[in-house]
């Protein structure tokens, strides 16, 4: 295991010494993935609610699309978004390629199907009668939806964790559309890749540890909500 320990210790030293501007990288990660995850939740959870509760023509097709979307290779997303935003592409005028907004777009495309598909499944497990009961007590459609999401919180948290996880850990697409520009679009994952390519496994692992620590903290917070539902169970 010496190979790990050595590498890791070296990397940690480097991060702590401030030789690398770790915190700017972390900040960019938080900004980009935070924005993307928020958007993914804002769009994906309502989509999941509709897919999980309503019956309409094309619903099954949309479920297939969402499920398929979870298999969308991030590099393909990156490629397509890059082509769209490239100077020669249709949205070239916006000059968005290699900027944070571009990364947010790509990550959103990656996380959206996950959030939508998993929350659709979660919401569909809430008995229809419970929704009718809420409605019969005066709930508006929004209040009814909110109640349903609360009932489905275990699955919903899994959806959020999966969406967040897919985004924060993603590297292919953000590299392609962000360009890994130091201080601008370099995020934790792209920095990890860079260190790896440079053979600097130490900082790579140290950054990975920082990343995992962040994910862990987020998930510990999410777990509180998740298990708050179980307080009431037998």
């Amino acid at each position, binding site marked *: 295991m010496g190979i790990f320990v050595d590498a890791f210790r070296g990397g940690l030293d480097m991060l702590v010494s401030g030789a690398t501007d770790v915190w700017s990288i972390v900040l960019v990660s938080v900004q980009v993935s935070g924005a993307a995850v928020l958007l993914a939740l804002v769009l994906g959870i309502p989509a999941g609610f509709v897919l999980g509760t309503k019956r309409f023509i094309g619903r099954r097709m949309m479920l297939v699309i969402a499920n398929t979307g979870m298999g969308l290779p991030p590099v393909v997303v990156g490629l397509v978004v890059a082509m769209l935003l490239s*100077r020669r592409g249709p949205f070239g005028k916006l000059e968005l390629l*290699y900027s944070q907004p571009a990364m947010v777009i790509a990550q959103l495309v990656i996380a959206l199907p996950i959030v939508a598909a998993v929350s659709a499944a979660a919401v569909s497990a809430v008995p229809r009668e419970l929704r009718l009961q809420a409605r019969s007590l005066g709930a508006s459609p929004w209040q009814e939806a909110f109640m349903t999401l609360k009932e489905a919180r275990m699955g919903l948290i899994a959806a959020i964790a999966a969406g967040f996880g897919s985004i924060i850990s993603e590297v292919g697409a953000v590299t392609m559309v962000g360009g*890994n*520009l*130091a201080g601008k679009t370099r995020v934790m994952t792209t920095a990890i890749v*860079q260190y790896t*390519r440079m*053979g600097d*496994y130490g900082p790579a692992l140290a950054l990975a540890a920082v990343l995992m620590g962040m994910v862990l903290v987020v998930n510990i917070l999410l777990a509180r909500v998740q298990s708050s539902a179980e307080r009431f169970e037998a």
Partner: protein
Amino acid sequence: SKSTPEAANPEPAPVEKTKFVLASTTSTQDSGLFDVLIPAFEKANPEYTVEVIAVGSGEAMKMGENKDADVLLVHSPAAEKAFMEAGFGTERRDVMYNDFVIVGPASDPAGIKSAGDLNAVMAALAKGKAPFMTRDDKSGTNAKELKLWAGASVSPTATANAADWYLSTGQGMGETLKITNEKQGYTLSDRATFLTSKGALDLVILREGDKALLNQYGVIPVKDAAHLDGGTAFMEWITSAEAQKIIGEFGIEKFGQALFTPNAQ
């Protein structure tokens, strides 16, 4: 037809074949050279099959250190020297070189085309009129770039507005060229990669031919590697006249010019 990443190696290898790992750079692989070189090697040395792992020069040498590669084909003379001195390689031989070019927008806002020598070019770039993309990945290209700055006594990261013009991509040549294109800035590229991806770029060669822009490739079998015999055989073959001839002709058909100049002793 365009070059493809698939090696024409349809028959399953006979059992007695030894497999060894060649760690090389992405730029070499992306140029398509291995697609002709490897089949030729395997034909000449039927007892071997080669697995090419394309990574940055830095990682390639790390693979050597870890004995995950049996032979390296890299272009980072200073690092190669250190690698040899640390005792990781059995020997190092020159294989070929290609040359670096400085590319940028045709409008050439920094005016490097008309600048005198390379030092003047670097100084002009350091004025920060347009972004300069550095690969910043310890690759051969990156090493060469840093050498050029040093030669001109410029420390780009120390300039006042470095964050605005000296952009670190931390990526391979192809990606860095794409970013350069989007930013309509400058970068140092190996000729092969530039020619390969030129079609998608609005960039032109602004400086070429300067002596300091040569890019020397070396081959190093890894000491104590599991399949050192294969690595050594590869070194012997690639420095042979037969292989050197293949290298000298590679690219003529596609680009109208050779991408590499063989120079094995």
